[in-house]
């Protein structure tokens, strides 16, 4: 079924409740507009191959739409240990779409940095982590504050492979992410952290699905957002432990810091457990800044703005505390710090 044949998902569907498809589609929903390519460039020696897209066998409207725009797919196979790979994804013009396919056969650290000033940009990333391989993946969204952004990701983590996945979302006016990971072999694991700084009137909707298909698999998801102005953040997570995936361990924590009276945040963690012997946990909290934290910092000489800024900075950085790769953590921290310092100067 192609995009034109698909029904518009109703808002009763969990995924589309807060950012319905018509709000993230770039034009009229019946249309498949002409899209420019997102320009991918690499810092270093690695290179992409450009391949035609696979056939549309998606049952999801967002992926099917991105496929229908027809842009080419960039593919990278990482088979030996290397220095961190930095991929710059540059979007411009009215509508831009990019497809990226990663295949990791060893140990790798990959960063994708998306920037530019398009009206609308869509990105579909697929990744396969081969048995016993390890990928540390950082995604940094620094799009212009007027851009709309649709991002879909599909990851498969094979037996004894590990994926560390970090997102820093600070750009774009309206963002919708749908990230899905399948733990496809015994011992597969994912640690995922998402940090969102929602300022002004930003709308950021981050959806994560993790499926434990086999036993002895591990997932850990942390999502922290700081919401100021009249921004709206939505974090939804669905962890599924399928039948027979015993001894799996799944956890997810959502924390939202509300910095203004008009800011809104939704945190909806869901667990679907069909196996008997598992460990599964989830938690969510939304609250303003703790006044005892403010008082403590002010009692050490920081004025209220400095104290708030330090608490927000720490809160957002803390989302990366479930990661283990030092290079990944350092890069994400640095990007966040630079972003917050720039924001302070504005």
């Amino acid at each position, binding site marked *: 079924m192609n995009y034109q044949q698909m029904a518009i998902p109703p808002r009763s569907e969990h995924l589309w409740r807060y950012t319905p498809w018509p709000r993230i589609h770039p034009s009229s929903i019946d249309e498949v507009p002409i899209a420019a390519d997102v320009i991918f460039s690499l810092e270093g020696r690695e290179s992409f191959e450009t391949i035609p897209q696979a056939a549309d066998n998606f049952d999801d409207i967002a992926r099917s739409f991105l496929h229908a725009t027809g842009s080419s797919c960039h593919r990278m196979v990482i088979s030996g240990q290397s220095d961190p790979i930095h991929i710059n994804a540059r979007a411009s013009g009215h509508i831009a779409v990019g497809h990226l396919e990663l295949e990791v056969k060893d140990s790798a650290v990959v960063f994708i940095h998306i920037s530019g000033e398009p009206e609308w940009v869509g990105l579909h990333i697929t990744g396969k982590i081969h048995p016993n391989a390890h990928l540390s993946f950082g995604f940094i969204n620094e799009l212009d504050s007027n851009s709309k952004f649709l991002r879909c990701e599909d990851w498969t983590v094979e037996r004894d492979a590990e994926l560390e996945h970090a997102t820093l979302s600070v750009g774009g006016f309206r963002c919708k992410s749908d990230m899905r990971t399948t733990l496809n072999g015994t011992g597969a694991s994912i640690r995922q952290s998402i940090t969102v700084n929602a300022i002004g009137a930003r709308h950021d909707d981050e959806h994560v699905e993790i499926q434990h298909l086999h036993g002895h698999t591990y997932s850990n998801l942390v999502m922290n957002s700081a919401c100021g102005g009249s921004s709206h953040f939505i974090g939804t997570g669905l962890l599924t432990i399928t039948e027979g995936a015993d001894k799996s361990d799944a956890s997810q924590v959502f924390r939202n810091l509300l910095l203004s009276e008009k800011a809104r945040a939704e945190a909806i963690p869901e667990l679907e457990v069909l196996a008997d012997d598992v460990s599964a946990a989830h938690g969510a909290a939304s609250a303003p800044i703790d006044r005892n*934290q403010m*008082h*403590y910092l*002010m009692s050490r000489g920081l004025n209220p703005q400095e104290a708030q800024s330090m608490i927000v900075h*720490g809160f957002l950085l803390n989302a990366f505390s479930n990661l283990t790769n030092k290079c990944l953590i350092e890069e994400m921290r640095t990007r966040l710090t630079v972003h917050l310092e720039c924001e302070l100067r504005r």
Partner: protein
Amino acid sequence: MAEEILRIENLHVSVEGTAILKGVNLIIHRGEIHAIMGRNGAGKSTLANVVMGHPAYVITEGRIFYQGQPLENLAVFERARAGMFLSFQYPAAIPGVQVGTFLKKSVASVRDEPPKGREFRKELTAAMEQLAMDKSFLSRYVNDGFSGGEKKRLEILQMLLLQPNLALLDETDSGLDIDALRIVAKGINEVAVDSACLIITHYQRLLDLVKPHFVHAMMDGVIVQTGGPELALELEDRGYDWLDMAV
């Protein structure tokens, strides 16, 4: 006569409509160490918090002066910049904020001139060595996952770096083993030489190591007895019931 650092006159304080302090009077001069002892709920911590300007406490009557100036119009951070310091009984954890970053920012805020990198590192290393603190402390998050003793050491480390004119120490001895207590007491004694110091404690053991010039017994929101170090020994020996009778 040494400079008057803190003057509290007929202080009445309430929290959420409940009166906690009911007429406290106290004067502390530079170089003096005062200790306040009393039962749980007597108002000791309230006194320290209200002097530091915690927003939950409302002054309903009376005044506080710091170096001759009324405190009511000074915000919390202005009090800190003026040289006031509170070592918290339960210091707040700030996840994601590294101790090193926090200390540098705090010292830069309180001192007139921000410290230079190398000089600050030297000063910090010396203070940490004095308190037998490992350098790994600096990369941990402020009070996040700290033991009771680690929190108290961090409070004293801050005091050593900030060199306050007035140090309010709210149960700094609780949660410390005897070795840690000695180390912390050494730090307090160093700062106390040239500042005014108010120690809130339940126990005599800290006062064996930090000799107070004055000891005050507080009951039900007022100071009911003032004496020298011998009063602390008497309270330790006899408890607080005899004060009920005396009052």
